């Protein structure tokens, strides 16, 4: 009876329900085992509240890409390329679904390779991934839901890159580039940061070489996409007429709609990264909200100061920057720190986008580098600066004690580990992208013909038009 109740109580603590069943002889690592046949009805099943939240979160993260990001980016391009951006988001959703099912989930969250760089082969083709929890990652969430949730991250990350290279990369080249990029950059990086045997998973890997922390993907998602975006847009070259012809957003209305969806969906991204509906999720929800609202206000305020007008694009950019920067930090910092994160997130990407880009003259079409690379890097660093053991008990959990993260947290020096993680992420993204881009360029070429680019990719790559408003009545 005590064990039965203890298993249920674990539900409220997001703890392992089988802990109290571990009364058998010790295994070779010295951990007590569960005697054969001993179980309770609350062991090995999904917890309804946690499962509900993770299904909701997975749906919300999909919502970020389809249609959130597709609208955010689609609104910012010119009319003739709106569908091309949408097709790229849709195409990545399809492509990554297949890659993730076949190899991705296993390469990231498997552990059979026992490697810091790649997961394992045990879950190839999602073998054995069913509705029982995988307690390496979540005590109370169905493993298949966890796998789908993580798939949504694997979809949005390459889709973010699309922003930098919008309006001038062939659809076929985008698809081939991203296929290679998932294997060369995303899967290893995600394993390094989030896999239980990962190189820089300070929270869950007791033997992590780098004791870095990344709650919801500052390195894995935003730095990886942002820095790859910069490199790819440099290799690709500028859009025809860049700097001469004006290329204003064709619909700030769509862009604003996309921003709202990104913000809403991001709760799944950030609070969902607790993989439970517990107090850590609640904290992530709160810091995400505060940082985002503040960053939106700060960016627009800076615009108002600099040129007397606060713009819708400014509010939207600030909100997205706030979301990006708080991503790695949200589950580790308190609400006061979240306000500081918001202020910095509103200010630093603002200068990256309005000053750095004109200075260097690269054509980061929709500012993936300025917002995601700069913001992601800033966020990874700030996570180290602001992290607080009081907010998240995993920072002082078993793994963190084993690898010494707990002491770094107490000593306030996690930022050193974060710098290491930043360096590795940056190097992997840059090198990986360079290799793939140059090979592809040589093999099939990256850009459409000049005529195609002039006519717009909607017609030339997809044979469609975004809007046909003519009256024929």
């Amino acid at each position, binding site marked *: 009876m005590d064990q039965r109740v203890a298993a249920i109580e674990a539900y409220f603590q997001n703890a392992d329900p089988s802990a109290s069943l571990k009364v058998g002889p010790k295994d070779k690592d010295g951990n007590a085992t569960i005697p054969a046949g001993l179980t309770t009805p609350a062991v090995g099943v999904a917890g309804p509240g946690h499962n509900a939240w993770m299904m909701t979160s997975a749906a919300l993260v999909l919502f970020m890409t389809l249609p959130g990001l597709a609208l955010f980016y689609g609104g910012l391009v010119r009319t003739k390329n709106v569908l091309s951006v949408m097709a790229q988001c849709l195409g990545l959703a399809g492509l990554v679904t297949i890659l993730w099912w076949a190899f991705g989930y296993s390469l990231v969250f498997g552990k059979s390779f026992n490697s810091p760089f790649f997961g394992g082969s045990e879950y190839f083709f999602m073998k054995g991934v069913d509705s029982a929890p995988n307690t390496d990652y979540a005590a109370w969430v169905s493993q298949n839901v966890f796998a789908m949730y993580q798939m949504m991250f694997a979809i949005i990350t390459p889709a973010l890159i699309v922003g930098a290279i919008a309006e001038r990369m062939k659809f076929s080249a985008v698809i081939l580039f991203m296929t290679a990029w998932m294997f060369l950059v995303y899967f290893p990086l995600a394993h390094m940061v989030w896999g239980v045997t990962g190189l820089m998973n300070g929270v869950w890997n007791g033997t992590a070489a780098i004791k870095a922390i990344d709650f919801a993907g500052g390195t894995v998602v935003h730095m990886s996409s942002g820095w790859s975006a910069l490199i790819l847009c440099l290799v690709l070259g500028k859009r025809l007429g860049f700097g001469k012809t004006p290329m*204003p957003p064709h619909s700030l209305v769509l862009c604003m709609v996309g921003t709202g969806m990104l913000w809403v969906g991001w709760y799944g991204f950030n609070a969902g990264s607790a993989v439970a509906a517990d107090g850590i999720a609640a904290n992530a929800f709160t810091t995400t909200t505060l940082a985002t609202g503040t960053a939106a206000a700060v960016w627009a305020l800076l615009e108002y100061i600099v040129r007397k*007008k606060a713009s819708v694009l400014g509010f939207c950019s600030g909100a997205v920057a706030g979301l990006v920067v708080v991503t790695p930090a949200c589950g580790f910092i308190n609400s006061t720190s979240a306000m500081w994160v918001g202020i910095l997130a509103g200010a630093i990407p603002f200068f990256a986008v309005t000053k750095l880009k004109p200075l260097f003259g690269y054509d980061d079409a929709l500012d993936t580098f300025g917002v995601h690379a700069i913001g992601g890097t800033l966020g990874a660093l700030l996570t180290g600066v602001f992290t607080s053991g009081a907010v998240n008990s995993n920072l002082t959990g078993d793994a963190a004690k084993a690898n010494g993260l707990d002491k770094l947290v107490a000593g306030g020096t996690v930022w050193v580990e974060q710098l290491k993680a930043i360096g590795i992420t940056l190097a992997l993204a840059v090198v990986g992208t360079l290799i793939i881009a140059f090979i592809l360029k040589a093999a099939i070429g990256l850009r459409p013909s000049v005529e195609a680019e002039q006519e717009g990719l909607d017609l030339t790559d997809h044979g469609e038009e975004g809007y046909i408003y003519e009256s024929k009545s």
Partner: protein
Amino acid sequence: MKLIIAIIKPFKLEEVKEALAAAGIEGMTVTEVKGFGRQKGHTEIYRGSEYTVDFLPKVKLEIAVADGVAAKAIEAIVTAAKTGKIGDGKVFVVPLDEVIRIRTDERGETAI
């Protein structure tokens, strides 16, 4: 016959239409156009990129009239469209050789 082409400010369309009606002219064709002239445009800024938009929204009226009515029509347009501020627009008068009403095959002034 004359074809009067008038470029006016969009918010004056209703008034010009009424003035023409008062002058007995009840047919016209209207196009949304962009005008470029002495009137200055505005500046738009998108994340640090400034664009100067020189072209301003205008409305173009095309009105076919009998020769005798042209002067009255022009007078009506000019009076109704004037604000006195730069960018009020222009009236162009072009000779018109023939007019046909498609519905009835009428030709000339009766077709207007």
